[in-house]
């Protein structure tokens, strides 16, 4: 049997009200024992005014929200006590609850119970966690939308669509003599796969956005030594009064600082100057810089207007061009000796000394990532690594289906790939899929002796 847990649900700061939440089988009994009005016989989802008393001493004047299971967040009996006496009184109320048989909840335990009791699915539970740890507004909005189940619905709908096709194919296999039922032919399968792939692609590209919003965008600043990388960084951070954090980047690079653009965290990663070198220690640094650039979402290559392109710089331009490259041509006040290849599109000209071009740079980053369109109040993207991994696997399975269909395999073989995709999508929500398909077959088709 689960025990009864409690926690202070509001922030520990100074505010007019703080809320203590209690959930579990003993909830009503425990709170009733320290409250001066009868809760045991009160009906569910009602609010009660009264006092918390301990050893005849009035501790606080409170409102008690009584919510009996299963229509509660955890599906167990839940009570929220609105305390009025400031943080110390609230802590006192907590102590009394603990003394009366409650256990202090672990972080996230209320959500865990909601999940374990089957009220929310895994995707929603993970989103609650994301909501709690959200660093930026955009990340918070995204998490809220996912808690609401928008994304779950999107995935469920796609699975439903696939399930219908799977059921149809199974029916064709198990009841070949029933020619009145639609036969999923190779041609029809082509159509179906195209349609599903399109919908899945929305999830896949959304997942990319989701990660950007949740974890922020990593911008690697690269360039040869003394080209002005650090100055650019300092200027950007200085102007934004950015919080300098110690959040590690994805490649264990030190994020030098973070600014917020359109509500998305932009993490700048400074790198060692890149140049040809025979010095072993420096070479390690250079290699690491290249790796950082490879893993970054955006590579900001800083060039000197006053110097010609080096071979190393040309290689960089070639390597990252268009995909994720931004070029900042620094030192525009000096004589122009730099000649850029015409293929390079995203170029910002400026000067770190008088902050010329820095705003244009920020705009360029935002444009490059389409932040305007991906960050909006309706957004719902997969953003958790586990989820992204599964949606990628689903995409892979669909690709196999497409390829094998091209190669001439029969529909009942292609179905194996399609079923795999369907299972991966189910795993995102933590659903078990046993039996679902057979149910589908018999609810949608009319067969049998």
């Amino acid at each position: 049997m689960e025990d009864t847990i409690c926690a202070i649900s509001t922030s520990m700061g100074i505010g007019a009200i703080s809320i203590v939440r209690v959930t579990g089988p003993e909830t009503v009994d425990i709170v009733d024992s320290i409250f001066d009005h009868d809760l045991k016989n009160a009906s569910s989802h009602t609010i009660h005014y009264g006092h918390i008393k301990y050893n005849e001493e009035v501790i606080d004047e409170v409102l008690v929200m009584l919510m009996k299971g299963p229509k509660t967040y955890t599906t167990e009996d839940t009570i929220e006590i609105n305390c009025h006496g400031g943080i110390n009184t609230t802590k006192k109320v907590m102590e009394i609850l603990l003394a009366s048989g409650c256990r202090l909840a672990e972080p996230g335990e209320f959500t865990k119970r909601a999940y374990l009791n089957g009220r929310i699915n895994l995707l929603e539970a993970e989103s609650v966690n994301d909501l709690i740890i959200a660093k930026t507004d955009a990340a918070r909005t995204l998490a809220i939308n996912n808690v609401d189940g928008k994304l779950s619905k999107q995935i469920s709908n796609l699975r439903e669509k696939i399930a219908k096709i799977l059921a149809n194919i199974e029916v064709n296999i198990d009841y070949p003599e029933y020619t009145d039922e639609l036969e999923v032919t190779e041609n029809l399968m082509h159509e179906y796969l195209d349609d599903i792939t399109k919908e899945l692609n929305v999830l896949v590209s959304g997942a990319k956005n989701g990660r950007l919003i949740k974890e922020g965008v990593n911008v690697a600043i690269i360039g040869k030594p003394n080209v002005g990388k650090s100055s650019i960084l300092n200027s950007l951070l200085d102007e934004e009064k950015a919080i300098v954090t110690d959040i590690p980047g994805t490649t264990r690079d030190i994020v030098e600082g973070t600014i917020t653009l359109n509500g998305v965290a932009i993490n700048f990663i400074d790198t060692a100057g890149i140049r040809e070198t025979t010095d072993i220690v420096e070479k390690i640094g250079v290699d690491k810089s290249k790796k950082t650039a490879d893993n970054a979402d955006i590579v900001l290559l800083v060039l000197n207007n006053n110097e010609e392109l080096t071979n190393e710089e040309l290689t960089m331009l070639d390597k990252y061009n268009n995909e994720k490259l931004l070029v900042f041509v620094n030192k525009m006040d000096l004589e122009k000796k730099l000649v850029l290849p015409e293929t390079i599109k995203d170029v910002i000209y400026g000067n770190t000394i008088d902050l010329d071009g820095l705003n244009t740079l920020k705009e360029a980053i935002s444009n490059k990532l389409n932040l305007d369109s991906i960050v909006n109040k309706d957004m719902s993207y997969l953003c958790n690594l586990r989820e992204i991994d599964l949606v990628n696997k689903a995409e892979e399975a669909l690709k196999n289906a497409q390829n094998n269909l091209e190669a001439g395999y029969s529909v009942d073989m292609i179905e194996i790939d399609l079923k795999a995709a369907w299972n991966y999508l189910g795993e995102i929500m933590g659903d078990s899929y046993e039996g679902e398909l057979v149910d589908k077959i018999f609810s949608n088709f009319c067969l049998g002796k």
Partner: protein
Amino acid sequence: MYDVIVVGGGHAGIEASHIAAKLGKKTLLITGNIKNIGDMPCNPSIGGTAKGIIVREVDALGGLMGHIADISHIQIKMLNNSKGPAVRSLRAQADKITYPKNMQEYLMKMPNLTIKESLVEDLIIENNIVKGVITENNERIEGKTVILTTGTYLRGNILVGSKNTPGGPHGERRSNYLSTKLNEYGLKIIRLKTGTPQRIKKDSIDFSVMSKEHGDNTYWTFSNDFAPSYKLEDQKPCYLLYTNEKTHQIIRDNLEKSAMYGGYATGVGPRYCPSIEDKIVRFADKERHQLFLEPESLYYDDWYLQGFSTSMPEDVQEQMVHSLHGLENAVISKYAYAIEYDAIDPLQIKPSLENKVLENLFTAGQINGTSGYEEAAGQGIIAGINAALKVDNKNPLILKRSDAYIGVLIDDLVTKGTIEPYRMLTSRAEFRLILRHDNADLRLRHYAHEIGTINEEQYARLLSKEENIKKLTAYLTENTLHLTSEVKEIFINNNKNVPLTGLNFYELLKRPEINLDFIENFITLDYPDEVKEQVEINAKYDGYIKKAFKEVEKLEKLEEKQIPEDIDYGKVTNLASEARQKLDKIRPKTIAQASRISGVNPVDISVLSIYLKKEYGKDEN
């Protein structure tokens, strides 16, 4: 004192008693009516999708159904022949007179097998160990093991409209007390329902307005051991017809008179075998439903009206049948009926088909909650083998989901239970690409040989087939197709894409449009067809087959992770409530089995694995 007592002479009881006797066990088959042994009270066919594969598996294990069907049918065809090899399956229209007759003759000649006519109403039980049976005449017959294959005879009730008659199919007597006794001994009894459609007199049918359904123009056998004994041209056709708006109107107008809709039935019927009234109600917008007329036998004139099963009263059935095009003047020789019967909760059965509550008691067929002759036979042979092994104190034969449809069937039953009569479907088998009709012998005959249900000659043939498959595969791999102009011409003349470079023949065979016949343009392949077939399938579906075996491997690792029998699920923190309840009820033996329980999610499986590792330490390597 018998070694094995089998109660019931249906398709489960036949295989159980036959195989036990074949294994040298002193076996008794008790049945209510000896003439009904091997009877087919419902549809006149053996096999069908997935079911046909089960028949081949029974044959591979040394069973009877395949061979008897081969010598008793009036039509046979390979279903899904245009689809992939994994979903092909044989179906035969069996002759309802010949099949039981051939079966009875075979069993009568069986050494070690005694057949007795009586009804069993109780078991001899001491300390939850079954020691024999007690018949309706209070005769006590002792046996080391008992196999119940009672079909629909446990408190059977025939329903036609509001009429409710106690009894088995064909007006046979039912067992009145056995299920109540089983319940007293601690077994949970569930009530199930199934049904069968009308039989129509041949002379009253106007076949000219229906379309013919022929058998195949290729010879087929279920059995791996005998050549075909029929003539292609002797096969008899079936006929296809449809319901119409008039039929639907009659059914709608009389709905409350049907046993099911009028509330006269309590059993749960199968969704895959709905009554015609069910179809009309649930699929209201469908304008017509397909029906088939199938001959029951060459020796009498009844035709089986497949798809028209109903529990309507007789007068309504007359109207319904006469509304069908071609059956306006039909004479109904037997009305459709629904039958309710008692079964045991399969969650109380072990994967060996021995009961969890009563030791030495095995069950197979409809009593375990299944439906279908083939499903019954598949369980029957396993129950028979395992009862025999139990007598010898040997470990039971438990087929894995990756071994056989029979393995899937039994695992589904004992892991998930059932609330409706369970029918095998291709979609229930996750490894259907491996569980093909064409490789049942390769999959199962090693087990059969080890247990002793096939003879040395059969085994030698298996080994030679395996050897030949290896040889042919190696031969194709080792030989290269050189693209001479002559070779190119053969490709072009046969409308095939000319390969860009030379390649070995096995790689060539992987191409969808290439088969071994074509390859024989270039090299001689002196191998039996059954060997070529295996090599061709292996090559063509190489990618999918490899993937499937990888999945099997994953599953087998999970199967190795045993869950201790005394585990207290209350102590496993972080299990979802639903999962905890289900696990506690079913008490799976392995992590793999646990993962197949509906309501137990992947996260619960992780939680459970971590708990086992922490608590018992030996769970994972």
